[in-house]
């Protein structure tokens, strides 16, 4: 398989993973049946070992897709305006195509300096997102729309995304509309009632879940039932995952810390079940976007690691807490996605920057974790600027084999 990064970086990765392997020897097998009598959830620390070959799943990094499919993209799949609030690359339901965002910096910015010190004035153009689709069979990349990012791809091929009113400009909130194309070649239809700072999340059946970003980066979860038909599903919340049948959403509320998680009916916003994270006494303060739901289990990224919740029988309980090893991934494990079954997840591990790296640029590692053994196989370690991310489709229901 073609490596994602050049060999020199792989050499660095091997050195890091050797250290991680030592850590793994120390921590592997540490299983603590911890928790209150009511929860009885297992708490384990995920050990990390270097993968001998390719790991499962589909990842993107540095302009390539690797894993289940391999491809050269038109550029690095990246979405600076949304991070991984929604996936930067989304396979279609049949897995044959990949919808992804790119970012073109219109003016270089030195993060050490203020905008004024760089001669950047209010209104200056700084960046431009573009939404693309890649066909794995032909190898072609086609632009879907300019000033656009953050795609949600439905099982029938409909694509929802945010189309900005302009390029990204200094001292200007990046507003746009949520638009939907019934197919790549169809004309976009505006679904949002008015321009705002939106990020799409996922389709839940025929309803689109999306965020409105507010002051302080507060995320409000909105449901769009059609053009102009938008409603607030939950304020100050994250979409962790959508149920396999698309009728329910697992939302994390962040109005308080510790927060809570809820199963919510997408059709009418009814909160069906709620679990206060503080009641678990596991140090879980919050759960976040980028999780997955398979069968009765929801894998959610949290401040302590990956929490696996059981949502069977009309209640939410913590089945297992898989802590990230602070010596390996002190900045957490993000975007945990069930892969094939509920015994494996693919994810990304984040480690803080070292002294020689750019400020605030984590090292990122592709992970394939076996939940039965609590061991993660680590493949590549890339600098944050490579935008290593699992490529996954959070919309439900899904037909075909997309992860």
């Amino acid at each position, binding site marked *: 398989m073609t490596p994602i990064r050049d060999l020199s970086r792989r050499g660095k990765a091997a050195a890091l993973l050797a250290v991680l392997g030592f850590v793994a020897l120390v921590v592997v097998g540490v299983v603590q049946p911890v928790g209150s009598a009511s929860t009885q959830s297992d708490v384990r620390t995920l050990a990390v070992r270097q993968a001998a070959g390719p790991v499962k799943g589909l990842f993107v990094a540095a302009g390539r897709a690797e894993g289940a499919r391999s491809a050269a993209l038109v550029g690095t799949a990246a979405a600076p305006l949304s991070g991984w609030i929604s996936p930067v690359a989304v396979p279609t339901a049949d897995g044959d195509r990949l919808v992804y965002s790119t*970012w073109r910096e219109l003016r270089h910015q*030195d*993060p050490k300096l203020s905008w004024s010190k760089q001669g950047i004035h209010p209104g200056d153009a700084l960046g431009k997102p573009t939404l693309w689709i890649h066909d794995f069979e032909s190898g072609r990349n086609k632009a879907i729309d300019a000033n656009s990012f953050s795609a949600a791809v439905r099982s029938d091929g409909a694509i929802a995304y945010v189309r900005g009113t302009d390029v990204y400009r200094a001292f200007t909130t990046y507003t746009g509309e949520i638009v939907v194309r019934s197919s790549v070649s169809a004309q976009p239809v505006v679904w949002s009632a008015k321009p705002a700072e939106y990020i799409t999340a996922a389709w839940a059946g025929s309803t689109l879940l999306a965020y409105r970003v507010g*002051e302080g980066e507060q995320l409000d979860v909105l449901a769009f039932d059609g053009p102009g038909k938008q409603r607030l599903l939950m304020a100050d919340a994250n979409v962790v995952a959508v149920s396999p049948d698309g009728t329910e959403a697992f939302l994390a509320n962040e109005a308080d810390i510790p927060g809570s998680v809820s199963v919510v009916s997408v059709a009418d916003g009814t909160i069906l079940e709620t679990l206060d994270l503080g009641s678990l006494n596991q140090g879980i303060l919050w759960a976040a976007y980028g999780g997955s739901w398979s069968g009765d289990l929801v894998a959610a990224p949290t401040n302590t690691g990956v929490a696996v919740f059981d949502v069977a029988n009309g209640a939410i309980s913590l089945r297992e807490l898989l802590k990230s090893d602070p010596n390996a991934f002190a900045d957490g494990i993000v975007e945990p996605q069930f892969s094939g079954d509920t015994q494996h997840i693919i994810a990304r591990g984040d480690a803080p920057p070292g002294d020689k790296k750019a400020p605030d640029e984590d090292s990122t590692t592709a992970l394939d974790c076996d939940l039965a053994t609590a061991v993660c196989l680590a493949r590549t370690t890339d600098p944050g*600027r490579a935008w290593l991310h699992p490529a996954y489709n959070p919309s439900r229901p899904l037909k075909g084999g997309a992860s």
Partner: protein
Amino acid sequence: MRTRFSLAVGAAIAAITIAAAPASAHGHFEFHRTSNLNSSLVWVYYPSSNPTAYYSPTWRAGSGDSTNCSYVGHGWLPTGWYDVWGHWDHYDSTIKGLATYLQDKKCGDGTLRTQLFIHSKELANWGSSCETYCFDSSSDYYSNGCIKLSHSGYGFPDDIQDAHWWWHNRDGYSFHGSTTVNDALYVHS
């Protein structure tokens, strides 16, 4: 705006050369990232033409609920110099009360952090209502990435008011509303 003579008396005005070079004739805030719950904020100013820095008291401050800068809505804010986009006494939106709006800033991987403020958890009229906005727990120092200071009323000092006083009265700025101010905050790693 309240006048706080006690602060002037109690201030630890130190003649120490700062790590971050003076950016302008005006003072500026410096935020030292230590942890999400317990970092620090200080006002730095230069009362005369000499290059000696004077400091306000240091206030406990929080930012984010993760140390992963690129974790939008969770990570603490990026390092470096910031321009300010506006300052309000009685802001009344999602953010309420004393609010200072910061420029967007990218993390090392290019992720943009936006909608960042220096603020507390108070009502627009500087009061408290624990049904909505009150600072009554150390966990209130957590934020989605903004710099959070405490508000009085539940055993915490009124640090947001103190910082506000220094902003206006020690080589700071008199304006209110949407105005761009250069180099008004430096975030240390």
